Structure formats: C-alpha cells, structure tokens
C-alpha cells in the first residue's frame, strides 16, 4: 500500500513547475516529482538543496590520490632499483600515475555515491505508478495534506489527470 496522496499528470514541464510551486505555497503536503528528463523548471520549483554528492566524490578523489602516492612511492622504496640514474622516489613521473588513480577513484566513488543516493532518495520519497513518468509525462505527487486542496491546485495548474492514491 502506497502512502496516501494525490498524483497529477502533466505534459508540460512549465505547468508541472507551477503545480509544484502552488502546492508548496499552500503547505501541508510533501511534494514529489517524477519525469522523463532532467527538466530544470519543476526541479527548481521543488526547492530541494543541491545534491551533496560532490563532497563524497571529492573524498574519493583524495583517497585515489593517497593510493597513487602509496603505490608509487611505497613499491619503489620496497624494491629500490635505480633506473636511468634517477632517484628512487622520482615524483614527476609518479604524478602521472597519481593523477590517473585520483580520477579513477573519484569516478568510481562518484558512481557508488550516485547509486546509494538515488536508492535512498527513492526509499525516502517513493512515487506511485511510475511507468508513464519515465516516458512522456511528468508526475507531481502531493503526499499527505488535504487531498481536496491538492486536487484543486493540480487541476488549476493544468494537470491532464488527477487521481488519489493510497
């Protein structure tokens, strides 16, 4: 059983953005979105803060840098073979490997963070009947609050369909 609320179906991102704004202004219901593309209007109207994924990615990149330094310096010291008369710890060539590992770890952690954040967001703010919202329509879900008021706001904003769930 899904949590109770009202779903509005929109074909225009602009209308969906208006609905989101009006529902938030009315208060009472928690507003959620589902859409087939990253439309900026409805997302901005939702007023959610910018994803903090970047911090996790940054830490991943730092870990990659540390791993790169440890690998190049550590293995060179562990097997100290002089080549070309260069120092055992030759930082300029090591920077290349350190850079590559920084990018690699940063990207992998970015991916892992995206998967976890998307999964957690979905668990915390689920959206009912998603199929059509992945294809050609934008869904606005008013969870909780006064269903009659939500229905009226969604219709006034130009929803093609409005239905109660839960």
């Amino acid at each position, binding site marked *: 059983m899904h949590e109770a609320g009202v779903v509005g179906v929109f074909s225009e991102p602009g209308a969906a953005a208006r609905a989101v704004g009006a529902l938030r202004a009315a208060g009472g219901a928690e507003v959620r*979105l589902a859409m087939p593309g990253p439309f900026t209007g409805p997302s901005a109207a939702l007023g959610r803060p910018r994803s903090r994924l970047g911090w996790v990615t940054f830490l991943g990149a730092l870990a990659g840098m540390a791993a790169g330094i440890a690998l190049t310096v550590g293995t060179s010291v562990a097997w100290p073979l002089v080549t070309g008369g260069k120092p055992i710890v030759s930082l300029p*060539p090591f920077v290349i490997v350190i850079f590559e590992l920084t*990018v*690699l770890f940063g990207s992998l952690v970015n991916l892992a963070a995206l998967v976890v954040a998307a999964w957690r967001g*979905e668990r915390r703010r689920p959206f009912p009947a998603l199929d059509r919202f992945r294809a050609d329509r934008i869904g606005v879900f008013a969870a909780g609050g006064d269903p009659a008021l939500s229905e009226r706001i969604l219709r006034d904003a130009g929803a093609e369909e409005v239905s109660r769930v839960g």
Partner: protein
Amino acid sequence: MTTGAAFLRIEELVRATHRRPGAGYLALVLLSAAAAAFGGWCWALMIRDGMWRTGLNRPVNWGTFITNFVFWVGIAHSGTLISAILLLFRARFRTAVYRVAEAMTVIAVTTAGLFPVIHLGRPWLAYWLFPYPNQRGLWINFRSPLIWDVFAVSTYLIVSTIFLLVGIAPDAAALRVRAGGWRRRFYGFFSFGWRGTGEQWRHYTRAYLFFAAFATPLVVSVHSVVSWDFAVSIVPGWHSTLFPPYFVAGAILSGLAMVLTLLVPMRRLLHLEPLVTPRHLDMLSRLLLLTALVVAYFYAVEYALSLLRGPLPERSTFLDRATGRYAPLFWMMLAANFAGPLLLFSARVRRSPKALFFIALGVNVGMWFERFIIIAGSLSHDRLPFLWRGYAPSWVELGITLGAFGWFFFWFLLFVKLLPSVSIAEMKVQAVEEAPRDA
C-alpha cells in the same frame, strides 16, 4: 505538436532503430565478424610461430601494432570531447550525437588495448604490466612511460564506460515501458533500477557533471601519456616537447572524423534524420575543420623547429619523411588531414553528407598514415646511417589491422541495434527548451 507528443516521437524514432535488422545490416555484421575472425587467426599464427611473422626487425621494432594502438586511442578521444567537454561548454548540438561518440570511445579504447598485448608477442605475460604482490618482491617501474600507458588507458576505459552506462540508464528505463519479451528484460538490466523521480534526477545531474569534470582532464592526459611513449626517448622525430598537444589535437581530429564516418551512414540507415539534422553535421564539420587547422599548425611548427633549429639527425629524419621511402604516405597524409578539411570552409560542402563522409574517411586514412610515419619513419632513419633500414608490415600484421577494424565495427553495429544511440532524456529537455514559449 504538444510536448508529450514530442517526447513520444523522440522515443519512437530511437525505438525504430531497434526494429528487426535488414539484410544490409546483417551483411555488415557478418562482414565485420569475418574480418575480426581473420584478424584473430592471424594473431594465432603469430603466437604459434613467433614474431618473425611480422615485418618487425632492427631498427624498426615498433611498427603496425603500435601505429594501431595510437590510432585507436586517438579515435577514442572525440567521444569524451563531444560528451564531456561540450557538456561543460553547454554546446547544445552535442545532444543528438554524443551517445554515438561515447559508444565509439568505449569500443575504440577496447580495440586500442588489444595492441600492446598483441605487440608483446607473448600475450599470456601481459599481467606483468600491472603491479601485484609477488613472492620475489618485484614491482613495476613507475618511471617507464609504458606503465603510465597502462594506468592512463585502463582508467580511460573504466571512466568512459561508466559515463556511457550512466547516460544510458534513463533512456533504457524509458524504452522498457513499451517493450516486451527479452527486450524488456534487456532494457531493464541497462536501466539499473532507474525510476526517474525528482530525487534521482537531483543526484544524477550533479554526478553527471562530475563525470564530465573528471573525463575532461583525463582525455588530455591519456593522449599526452601516449605521446610520451615517444617523446621521452632520444629518437630523432620523437624527442620533442611539442608532442603532447600535437598528439591530443591529432586524436581529436581523428576521433571527430570517425564520428562523422559513422554518423553519416548511420542516420540514413536507421532513419535518424529528424534527430541528427544537417545542423548537427554542420557543427561537427566545423569542429573538424578547426582541429584540422590546429593539427596543420603543429605540422608546420614541427617542421620549422627541426629544419631551422634542430640538430642534424633531426633535420635528416624530417627531410627523409618528405622525400624518402615513406614520402608518398607523407604527402597523402597532408592531403587528407589538411587539404581535404579545407573544403569545409564551404557551407555547401558542410551541408552535403556525402562530401562530409568522404572528407572524414580521408582524415581517418591520413591519421593512420601520420602515426605510421611518426613511428616507422623515425625508427627507420635513426642517428646511425649504417642502421637505416625500411619496414613494411607483413600480411599477418595487415590481417590483424583489418581484424581490429572488423572488431570495432562488429561491436558498434551491435550497439546501435541494441541500445539507444541517441540520448532520449536529453533530447526531451531540448524539445522543451526549443518549444515556442506560449506552448
């Protein structure tokens, strides 16, 4: 047309590319699979009989295989240029073409990665290139450019694969809605549980930007590292600080040429003309022209520096390139990489897909010649005149080269039939942005 209808039309156009393949498509798949199989057989011969099957000998110990490696790494570059760098620059024309470029990147890096292994002669020892704890306490030499290559190319393959798959997820989820049977399960797998909620998009758009930010310096680093394979040596014709930007520009030129070579027939065969419009081809051909001019500038600087200021062996090598045994390849390279793209100053040529196709094909050939001349041309004309000796690839090397093209086209053809070759989600955003304001 309403926005919802425009969304459906975009989806239908992409879905139509996945319809039952025609005889022409199947013939191309068979042809490329046969070429790949022939290449595999040639490689098997080389493994069985040894390196004498190749034309490699002193002083030319790097030949067609390393030429192919540099060529395919270069091809891989424009994918990231178009998808990541143009994303950061907010160039909207990339939307319709970047998926093809990204797929091309991943397949080209995979192809490139085969060649150092083939070149080893004993491919079963390829794992020696990677650092791993062992009982003898030996570690790889991080001061060697070949090890930089291992790290750069592996990282590039992993990051560009992630970038491609993350981009595909929302599109596969959209296609899954109206799909049935095995296709529904297939799209379901590649959608990775994508649901398209506001929360998912909030994190996705941010993460995508970071992938682009990582990929941008990576693309510059990878071909710079490849160029250092040559530049850190003292071979005349290789030992130059010009090499990193020269190689990166050349890589972008060859990659753009390959995108056009693939895109022009593909948009026609898969009926993607409404999405990949003449404007997209025009913008790509302008980029091609720009990079061709940059590469021509590097050719001029390279020659000017060596002939006016360079030491005698350097001058001798560069004169040999233009007048010696590889001179026909050199002049064909100049014609294909410089004279051909100059035609793109004409708007009429840029509007003609057929002309674009042949100019791009010419650049592909020219860029292969360029790498061959740099590698074999420099080694065959080293510092010691008594060691000057020509090199010609054996039929086994040419067979493996043909096999690489077969391998590349085989996977690319499978890709366009199985996965969305245009970004549906971003095309929908573009449709909204381009719709009349009062709609």
